[in-house]
């Protein structure tokens, strides 16, 4: 086997076939277009359980403790530990768990109405930030940073990291909504993102691109 791996012909073959084809943004775009609108298959429950059990932090003692706590909570919820003759109805135990307050008159149907799910999610959406990854192909640049309305157009606030293939990359927290941004190459050259639509309302009269951040 060593002969194969050190043979001059095989080494020449390896050298000839090793070179990577150039980056092909159009082909990459076709791949991304092909997956657009597809829904990834969710992680199976058994896989989540298996991953958890195989995690370095997993211990059987800890898991046994959690099972014991869960059984104990279930035991209480079923009224097994209540005073004789004052067992808590099953429906009220459910209300206690959901609302965090004791109200023995609340029935399960009312419990759901009392939780302002829609209002809570609206507030959360307005305040939460989403991780947005910016990728920019410019192998010859020495530095590239992202500027935009989300970082007050500060040139040195979001320096990008260079991948081995010459692409620059950074993931930034950005609030949902429409944003204008640009890439700054070597600290002075402002460039738009070739993958994004151009902004016609760029700040400072500089070129800009548009990104619309949405919540899942």
């Amino acid at each position, binding site marked *: 086997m060593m002969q194969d791996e050190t043979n001059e*012909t095989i080494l020449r073959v390896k050298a*000839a076939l090793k070179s990577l084809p150039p*980056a092909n943004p159009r082909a990459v775009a076709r791949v*991304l277009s092909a*997956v657009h609108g597809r829904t990834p*298959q969710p992680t199976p429950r058994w896989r989540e359980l298996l991953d958890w059990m195989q995690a370095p932090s997993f211990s059987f003692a800890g898991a046994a403790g959690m099972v014991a706590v869960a059984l104990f909570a279930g035991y209480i919820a079923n009224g097994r530990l209540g005073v004789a003759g004052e067992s808590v109805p099953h429906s009220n135990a459910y209300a206690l768990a959901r609302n965090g307050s004791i109200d023995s008159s609340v029935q399960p149907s009312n419990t759901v109405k009392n939780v302002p799910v829609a209002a809570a999610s609206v507030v959360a959406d307005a305040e939460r930030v989403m991780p947005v990854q910016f*990728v920019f192909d410019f192998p010859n640049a020495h530095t590239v940073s992202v500027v935009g309305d989300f970082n007050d157009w500060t040139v040195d606030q979001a320096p990008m990291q260079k991948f081995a*293939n010459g692409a620059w*990359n950074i993931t930034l927290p950005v609030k949902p909504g429409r944003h204008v941004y640009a890439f700054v190459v070597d600290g002075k050259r402002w460039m738009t993102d070739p993958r994004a639509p151009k902004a016609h309302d760029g700040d400072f009269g500089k070129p800009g691109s548009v990104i619309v951040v949405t919540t899942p």
Partner: protein
Amino acid sequence: MIELGPALQGAKRGDRHAFAALVELLHPRAMRYATHMVGNSEDAEEAVQDAFVRVYDNLSKFRDDAAFDPWFFRILANRCRTLLAKRKRRYAVIEYGDLPNNASTPASTSDEFAAEIQYVLNQLPAEQREAFLLRHIEDMEYEAIAAITGVGLSAVRMRVKRACDVLRSELNAVYMDA
């Protein structure tokens, strides 16, 4: 070795930007393998695109503690095999006396050698070509290749050895003995 970690983790969480970064990082390697495997870039691009769609659909099943390369290349190798089985391969055959008018400017020696290698690769049985590319071009361990191809270690070693034997004898006949 390209660092896939951040893009891979983001893509697993369903971050489309991270998946885009993952595709950009892996695409050249995937195209290199697929082009050498199926023999032309058009079919290779189709196989690579199919592979990435399957990766996207099934990324949630990929375990964090597993190596990504064997998982990805198993999918890609399957797509290449399916494509080879489905389509008749198309080879460009240039006969002597059929040279184009501008043939007075010969291709570089390295281009000729690369074309000759691809020709010999195309003559190999697909399973030997696959094993050779994974071992010598993608630098994978025999154990990983066994996992990708679904055959035993000894069979993988034999396939790589036979591919090397053919490449060595065919290319030596053309270049070394000249």
